[in-house]
């Protein structure tokens, strides 16, 4: 090995340690550049509003006259409300053709992670034969994951619920959007009562779907609290390429870690990979989002494992590894 080769390796060690030390996921060194994300959004909103006012928007403008909503200067019919930022002819195709993930193009940083413990309160989720409830597992694993991401990686971590309360899917999405989270991870446990299955899978926000995913989404979307109209509008705004790309990558990283690590503990587990599905909670959240099915509660052996704190801690570790691996690829140094 030449001195030059060794030099490269030593540099890599330095950079790896530097990243940990800086404790942020900024791609650029401190003090230079910054996030272009806010500039991008402002630009899009500006362009979109210009289109709005010069094309279809005008007809809907009428002076308010004794309306309930007299505080609004525009009284606009409900069905022409559009979801920003993509539906008024703003052309993003030039950006999305490139091989470089958009998040890197715009130097997007991740600071806040929202963890969503599935079900809760009056909604126990699925139950195993011994009576273990999904909501208990999702909460425990979520709390452990939150702690790990906070203390090991300095991330700001928030949770939709940190105790046994009931939240609709819409509430979970709104809490997440209000908090301006950069990532959304929802934790669930699978349920296949008629088959002795043991598999892991991770869903991400995406447009292509298959029958099975649609059916699963239907069940999980039961407590949504969105009207059909609102939901359709949201799914139509699937031009959000950044969210799509990043959700997929996050799902890959998390599923890969979950499966690889669980397989070491239990050879029987199957890898059902990543799938896109119209889960309300994934569609409603603005940030890249995934839903991880971390086990199968209808499987007897699994239920026994899922009841133990040790195994839940392991699952939190595997999820942590997945999220961290995703963040590292976001931060990957390109050849300079």
């Amino acid at each position, binding site marked *: *090995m030449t001195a030059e*080769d*060794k*030099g*490269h*390796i*030593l*540099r*890599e*060690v*330095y950079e*790896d*340690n*530097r990243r*940990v*030390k800086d*404790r942020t996921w900024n791609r650029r060194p401190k003090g230079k550049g910054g996030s272009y994300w806010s500039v991008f959004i402002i630009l899009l909103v500006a362009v979109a509003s210009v289109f709005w006012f010069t094309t279809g928007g005008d007809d809907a403008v009428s002076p308010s006259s004794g309306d309930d909503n007299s505080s609004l200067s525009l009284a606009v019919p409900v069905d022409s409300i559009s979801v920003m930022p993509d539906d008024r002819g703003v052309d993003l195709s030039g950006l999305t053709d490139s091989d470089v993930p958009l998040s890197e193009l715009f130097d997007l940083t991740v600071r806040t992670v929202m963890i969503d413990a599935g079900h809760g309160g009056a909604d126990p989720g699925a139950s195993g034969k011994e009576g273990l409830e999904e909501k208990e597992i999702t909460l425990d694993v979520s709390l*452990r994951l939150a*702690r*790990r991401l906070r*203390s*090991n*990686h*300095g991330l700001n971590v928030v949770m939709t619920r940190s105790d046994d309360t009931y939240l609709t899917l819409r509430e979970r999405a709104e809490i997440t959007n209000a908090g301006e989270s950069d990532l959304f991870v929802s934790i669930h446990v699978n349920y296949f009562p008629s088959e002795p299955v043991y598999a892991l899978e991770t869903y991400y926000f995406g447009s292509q779907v298959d029958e099975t995913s649609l059916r699963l989404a239907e069940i999980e979307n039961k407590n949504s609290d969105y009207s059909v109209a609102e939901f359709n509008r949201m799914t139509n705004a699937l031009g959000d390429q950044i969210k799509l790309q990043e959700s997929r990558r996050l799902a890959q990283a998390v599923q890969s870690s979950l499966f690889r690590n669980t397989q*070491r*503990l239990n050879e029987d587990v199957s890898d059902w990979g990543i799938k896109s599905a119209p889960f309300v909670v994934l569609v409603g959240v603005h940030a890249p989002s995934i839903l991880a099915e971390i086990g199968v509660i209808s499987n007897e052996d699994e239920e026994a494992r899922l009841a133990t704190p040790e195994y839940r*801690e392991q699952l*939190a*570790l595997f999820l*942590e*590894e997945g999220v*961290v*691996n995703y963040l590292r690829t976001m931060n990957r140094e390109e050849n300079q």
Partner: protein
Amino acid sequence: MPPKKSNSTVYIGIDLGTSRSAIAASNGKKDWVQSYVGWPRDFVSRKMLGKNILFGDEALEHRLSLNLSRPLEQGVIREGTERDEEAVRELVHFLIEQIKPGSATEVFAAVGVPAEAMRVNKLAIRDAVKEYADRLMVVSEPFAVAYGLGTLNNSLIIDVGAGTVDLCIMHGTMPGEEDQRTLSLGGDFIDRQLMNLLNENYPDASFSETMVRSYKEDKGFVGSARSRVKVNAPVSGVSTTLDITAEMQRVCEGIVAPMAEGVMDLITRYEPDFQEEVKKNIYLAGGGSQIRGLDSMLTDSLKEYGSFKVTVIDDPLFAGAEGALALAREMPEEYWEDM
């Protein structure tokens, strides 16, 4: 952290392992300690022991009077216990004290940790070590070993530790996620299996964890036994000699197949042009590399995939620490500036 006004600099390499931790310094000093830290349970123990904290063999010896911690169990700093992080901090402090840096000396440290800890505890480890070192870099253990051996390209390091077996394939760069595999069946796993088997076969005998570990460390083997494995244990209170050859062989051999699988998993994903070279450059490191016959048995079990050469490294106790030391010394000045 601004450097102290100092007369000298010492470079150190530290190997933090589940079972053993070692240090090697540029002033020529070396030391190692069993990775145990103990605090007296109450003021009576404190008075009897005369110290606030004990390490290694001493901690083990007095374990009944101590709150004992083995902070890198399973190759990671365990969750939820500030005590484990405290233990790592104290362990590092203890090791650094052993090489006597002197108060006016700046300490530049490179620390090797098990691959799992590298994945999830980087920040915790930095926090634990930086109190006692002026500059610090953290690397994975198998990489530190490779660095010390100079085998940074087309080679495979198998670090057989107590918590985990870490496999790491080297291709001339710092290893990434995809270059490593971690098996959770290390020395501790073997101890547990051995304990279970012995309790089953000798129900009247009493075995402690420490005893079982020492049997393995002294007489662990795979393949054909050169001599019978005879150990002493109390049977119904009477010290008796037992022949545990079959049990020892069985539990030690239990890790060979998964290791072989890990090796092939990494090699098959490697650049095809260089796979043959990697096969000839496999190194066994870590405490577990001392299991007699492990290198031959591993070579045998891989026979159907080609011709392999597995080498047990010299001085597995200090290989990681020496490798980390070499890295610390060769790291350019300007990179140390930022740490």
